[in-house]
């Protein structure tokens, strides 16, 4: 962990620690996904690659404030930063993209469909909104067993997923049951090519919260500090038993929908607006400005990330994929039903 080069000032407060830690995860995520995109363009990844460029601050600042082993975190597609912050080993990500038989899903599912539910990070399915009710269930079960305590469960989605029935049913159910659920909505302005004015009619996406009888927090998703503070508030309210919290982060998707898409539908105007700022650059500038890290320390963070990413990917690349002939083609866990 980097120590500040700022020796003349007060000991670094809690915020700066969280900021720098979170920044580290953001850099790791960006470095990893840039590398994966390159590998994809070289034709070495089968299937889709979807990255969270521009959303790292919003994603990581939720997870870096959750406690693995206590809380539940359900990441979605553009949450590489959040996964890293929550504690997902980078090798899991590398293995899943590269189809290693040693990855968490043994090649049975790929790219972002990975997780570790026994450590509180359930594995997503592709249907948007579907994971929220799973988080509900995990919280519900803990409460039934009187093991919930102050744990919270967070589910991540984007603006598009708020149109699904699954989202509606799950949020409504969580509200009725007053579960400590946090839904983080990365409003990146587009669901593939569909802009938000075709997705919902509310003035602001966060207005939906009122309809469900839950609290809503609207933040600038490009600003790391604002994200950290916003989530801190949501988490503490949830822990305090105030029921579900919706946190909407307003930002811009800085990549295509997938690496196969060059998003021609995003206007230059939008790209050059405030919404289009890169949270990573912004965060670095702020960190240096606040003297929470020096330029060199920031570069070190980048270097460290690069080494970690390269190591993980080299490792995963060297591993074999699953062998269909010796694979366990069995969909049941019950011994009496397994062939």
């Amino acid at each position: 962990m980097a120590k500040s080069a700022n020796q003349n000032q007060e000991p670094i407060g809690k915020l700066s620690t969280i900021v720098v830690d979170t920044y580290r995860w953001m850099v790791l995520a960006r470095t990893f996904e840039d590398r994966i995109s390159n590998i994809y363009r070289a034709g070495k990844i089968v299937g889709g690659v979807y990255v969270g460029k521009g959303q790292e601050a919003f994603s990581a600042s939720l997870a870096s404030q959750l406690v693995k082993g206590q809380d539940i975190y359900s990441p979605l597609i553009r949450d590489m930063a959040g996964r890293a912050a929550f504690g997902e080993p980078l090798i899991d990500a590398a293995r899943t993209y590269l189809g290693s038989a040693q990855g968490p899903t043994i090649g049975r599912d790929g790219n972002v469909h990975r997780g570790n539910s026994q450590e509180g990070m359930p594995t997503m399915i592709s249907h948007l909104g579907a994971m929220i009710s799973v988080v509900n269930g995990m919280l519900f079960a803990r409460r039934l067993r009187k093991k919930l305590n102050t744990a919270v469960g967070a589910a991540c989605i984007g603006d598009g997923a708020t149109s699904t029935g699954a989202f509606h049913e799950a949020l409504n159910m969580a509200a009725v049951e007053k579960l400590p659920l946090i839904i983080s909505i990365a409003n990146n302005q587009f669901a593939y090519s569909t802009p938000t004015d075709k997705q919902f009619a509310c003035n602001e996406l966060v207005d939906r919260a009122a309809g469900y009888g839950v609290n809503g927090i609207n933040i600038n998703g490009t600003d790391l500090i604002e994200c950290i503070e916003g989530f801190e508030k949501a988490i503490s309210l949830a822990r305090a038993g105030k029921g579900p919290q919706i946190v909407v982060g307003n930002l811009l998707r800085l990549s295509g929908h997938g690496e196969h898409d060059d998003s021609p539908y995003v206007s230059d105007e939008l790209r050059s607006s405030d919404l289009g700022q890169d949270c990573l650059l912004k965060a670095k500038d702020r960190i240096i400005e606040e003297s929470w890290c020096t330029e060199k320390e920031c570069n070190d963070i980048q270097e460290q990330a690069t080494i970690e990413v390269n190591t993980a990917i080299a490792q995963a690349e060297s591993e074999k994929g699953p062998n269909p002939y010796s694979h366990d083609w069995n969909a049941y866990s019950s011994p009496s039903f397994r062939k």
Partner: protein
Amino acid sequence: MSISYLEAIREAQSLALENDKNVFIYGQDVGAFGGAFKATKDLFQKHPDRVIDSPISEDAMVGLAVGAAIEGMRPIIEMQFADFSSVGFNQIVNQAATLYWRTAVSCPITIRLPSGGTPGSGPFHSQCMETIYAHYPGTIVMTPATVEDAYSMLLEAIAIDDPVIFCEHKYLYYHLKSDSLPKQTLPAKSARIVRSGRHATVVTYSAMLHEALRAADNMKTDGYEIEVVDLRCIKPIDMGTVLGSIARTGRVLAIGEAFPWGGVTSEIISRVSSEGFNLLDAPPARLNSIDTPIPYHPDLWRYHRPTASSVEEELRKLIRE
């Protein structure tokens, strides 16, 4: 003492709640009200924290069950009618049924579907959904036809570590009664030969078992002995028992109340044709409902589904071949 099919289901749930603190029941109106069919009557009073009313959200209900299963619980989801489970279809087939295969974490949930037609219930309160769920890998689908099986198979369903779709037949709820609950039981995945015979084998499940038995009784007067096999569990199918029966009789009629395209009867015919071709004296036959949505008017409804007399007609054709 007389116990109905519905009461047997209630008894099984009561026992499960009693014996395992991880079991809970979640569904619309299951709590104080005791459920639309009273399948959970008085259970809320005994276990108020574990018999819980849900909003009308079949998708979120099943998702919640999956989340609870991940945490080690054994949820029972009561769908008010099988027909409404289609709203939760995605969570059942894509979340629950794939969980173990994708993540090596078991999904021990039980989804109870009040299925099948009763007079006047119409197209959306009468469906048999076993086919759709059986199609997806990772599910176990049970279709008990007797009071005893409703009891023992539900207990087994709850104990199984994989998602079980438990298709209870609404018509049998109050119409079928037995003297007592079973002490010894057949494992859920075994089929049972309910009636032995020589001239033809009927393979069927759920309420159609009783139509088949009536038809078999009628044909006895003409000297025909019909063997009747109750599949009990339609995924997986106990082909061993089915083929063993056909080895004795040489003729098979598969009967299902479900729609004719695909489904259990098609599965039986195709497996018998490929695995038991040389056992056959006549082409394998099947009987399902008519290929239309289920009608409301009782006269139409009675015509739409297989009955003892349409079963008998098919059997006579089969035997004459």
